């Protein structure tokens, strides 16, 4: 089987709206976590979030797409546009069913939905937008990307909260192997409206520290939970053979994937983290020593951090691999997180720099973790392992190579 090449990247993130902007923010430790600006958050215990503050969809796409869509889909469309441009790929120039679209979705068009429910209850059914059904549902982004770019291959939508973005790449890999030439794949989320934030609060994993630079500190002794964010990334994937044939620039390759699921909390059984990482390495045909960096999930909830540190130690040996959590600069992007971590990892490989975990300063010795702190670390990266955990027990891991 020909390896899967990543030939396009599009980013809409609190750290920037292009891979380059995002990478310079990551290198400089410049955070996109700021006081919430989309509504007055004064009455909520969480008042900071990773936001794409200067995001403007209008002007970059036909206005009907704007009217029909929630912000999460607009961000997905923008990122898909950029990724296709980066890959110099136009689905319209390929055979009719040659391009697939696969997105991860974590909570759909939350803000659009809240507005329309407000109309329903304040004014009645006839006030509800005719676009509510297609803006709110989880498949909105895949459907709109397919229309915008004439992509008539299979269209997938996977939901596994934060783990969904990596699972989507695995599904795209299967489709490229079996039936299409290329796939647009990734995810976005934008649930920073009052109802979206309120729902997230009930996960009891959100940080109530409201100083932006101290709120989200994965693997820190004073970790206080995570900060929510919005945005994500889209990738273009195709077979290495196809990419070489058309002379595309290959940002990196997907070599392995595995997914697992944590047993129910009351069973006392161990997490699926270790096994999932090992299976992803097996799938890639490499061993732990071939991996130069792990992009960890980094929930910043002490029990979760301890679990994850232990699993990484079991696979790679205590302190045996450089570990980083660049999402400390964006907050957790849910469906958007997996794709953005892949972009960061690809850029890290290109530049030979392991990003630092900017907000973390004090890693407990018991974690036995080589977490890259303070500044990026110069180091050639042969392979990177990207790990993600989704609410409820989802675990997904992707191995990237040059």
């Amino acid at each position, binding site marked *: 089987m020909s390896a899967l090449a990543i030939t396009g990247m599009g980013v809409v993130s609190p750290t920037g709206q292009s891979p380059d902007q995002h990478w310079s923010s990551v290198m400089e430790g410049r955070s996109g976590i700021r006081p919430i600006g989309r509504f007055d958050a004064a009455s909520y215990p969480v008042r900071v979030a990773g936001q794409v503050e200067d995001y403007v969809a209008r002007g970059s796409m036909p206005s009907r797409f704007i009217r029909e869509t929630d912000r999460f889909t607009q961000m997905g469309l923008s990122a898909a546009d950029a990724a296709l441009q980066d890959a110099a790929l136009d689905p319209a120039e390929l055979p009719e069913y040659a391009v697939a679209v696969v997105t991860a979705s*974590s909570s759909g068009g939350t803000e659009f939905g809240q507005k329309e429910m407000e109309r329903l*209850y304040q004014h009645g059914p006839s006030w*509800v937008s005719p676009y509510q059904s297609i803006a709110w549902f989880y*498949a909105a982004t895949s459907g709109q990307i397919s229309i915008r770019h004439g992509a008539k291959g299979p*269209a997938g*939508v996977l939901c596994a909260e934060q783990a969904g973005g990596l699972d989507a790449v695995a599904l795209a890999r*299967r489709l490229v192997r079996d039936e299409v030439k290329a796939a647009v794949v990734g995810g976005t989320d934008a649930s920073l409206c*009052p109802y979206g934030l309120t729902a997230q609060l009930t996960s009891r994993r959100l940080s109530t520290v409201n100083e932006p630079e101290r709120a989200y500190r994965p693997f820190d002794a004073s970790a206080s939970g995570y900060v929510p964010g919005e945005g994500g990334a889209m990738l273009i994937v195709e077979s290495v053979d196809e990419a070489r044939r058309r002379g595309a620039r290959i940002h990196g390759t997907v070599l392995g994937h595995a997914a697992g699921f944590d047993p129910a909390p009351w069973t006392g059984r161990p997490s699926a983290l270790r096994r999932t990482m090992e299976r992803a390495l097996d799938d890639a045909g490499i061993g732990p020593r071939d991996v130069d960096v792990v992009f960890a999930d980094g929930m910043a909830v002490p029990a979760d951090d301890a679990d994850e540190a232990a699993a990484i130690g079991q696979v790679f040996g205590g302190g045996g691999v450089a570990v980083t959590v660049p999402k400390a600069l964006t907050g957790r992007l*849910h469906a958007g997180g997996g794709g953005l971590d892949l972009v960061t990892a690809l850029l890290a490989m290109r530049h030979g720099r392991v990003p630092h975990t900017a907000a973390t300063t004090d890693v407990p010795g018991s974690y036995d973790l080589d977490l890259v702190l303070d500044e990026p670390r110069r180091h050639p990266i042969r392979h990177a392992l990207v790990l993600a955990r989704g609410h409820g027990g989802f675990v997904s891991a992707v191995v990237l190579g040059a």
Partner: protein
Amino acid sequence: MRRAVITGMGVLAPGGVGRDAFWKLLAAGQSATRALTVFDPAPFRSQLSAEVDFDPRAAGLTERETRRMDRAAQFAVVCTREALTDSGLDLSRVDPSRVGVSLGSAVGCTTSLEEEYRVLSDEGRQWLVDHTYGVPHLYGYMVPSTLAVEVAWQAGAEGPVHLVSTGCTSGLDAVGTGARLIEENAADIVLAGATEAPLSPITYACFDAIKATSANNDDPEHASRPFDARRDGIVLGEGAAVLVLEEESRARARGARIQAELVGYGQRNNAFHMTGLRPDGREMAEAIRVALREARLDPTAVDHINAHGSGTKQNDRHETAAFKDSLGDHARRVPISSIKSMIGHSLGAIGSIELAACVLALEHQVVPPTANLRVPDPECDLDYVPLEARDHRMDVILSVGSGFGGFQSAVLLAAPGTVRP
């Protein structure tokens, strides 16, 4: 090559709880659609529904489970239990990391999200909703993946688990994707199916706004009329179905009763319009061809088609064209039916419920009818098996779906041992 077979089934559909009641309804050609009762329908254009008479306690859920789970999750868990029992699997003898879940749903936990919204926003009065009243499971309602979590917990699955949410084709895509997990050796057993409990005011408002639902409120029992010249839209329904997919050699080794084999799956997108369909059915036809190619079957091998048949004019013409395009002359000979005429359209769940119906049709060698089809639409000129079930010799059944977002899916099921050695 690894293949997926069906060794267990659980189904919850309007008109009666469980597999036997479900088949009885279909074979009798009886409609379970009725006037909407779950909330006051007065302000809505469409006041029809196909509801499941479901009592969570009688179905075996504890008080704690009932409080935690959205109705869609309750359906899925009850179906999972029924499917596991039906399969005869002893999960204590299975490696949990080889058990996966591929569940479908179009709108997730919408009903609970809306109920909680009403409280937190004081009936829509407060944009800044009151977070202090947020129930502990609210985030679980916001992320539809929770439905897959509940099924995974129920089955003790620790392998690949996900929710598929491709609108109204979710129920076909979840099963198709679940079979792939077995084929590519990521799992040996997959709980694959779909669930939906969308009967809430916001759902009705959504469909009212685009006039996709039937307003035939004076005649609820005959409101869902696919392929009939007088049809005027969808009747919203609810329900779930979960199948136990198992790797074939494993199923044979343990002497499991193989109920059907999954022999083909294809999916395409029309890249045309989020809710509109081109009348030529081109992309659905292609999805059918992809499924036939995978199964290495000629169009003439299809013995019955379970149609999407949602009861909208554009759908009925779209898929009639798709059948002609993909099956050629054989389209005129193959009996086609839409069970949505009896159990309504349960959005993401319906694809799996219809696959359950296909398994039962194979078992009984009976094609369920298209109920309420009395005045044929002259533009829909195929054999839609009106009103009465038909005895029919069948080895292979094609089931198709079409949904908002442009999704077009096709799944081929075969009676055990008929397509492959």
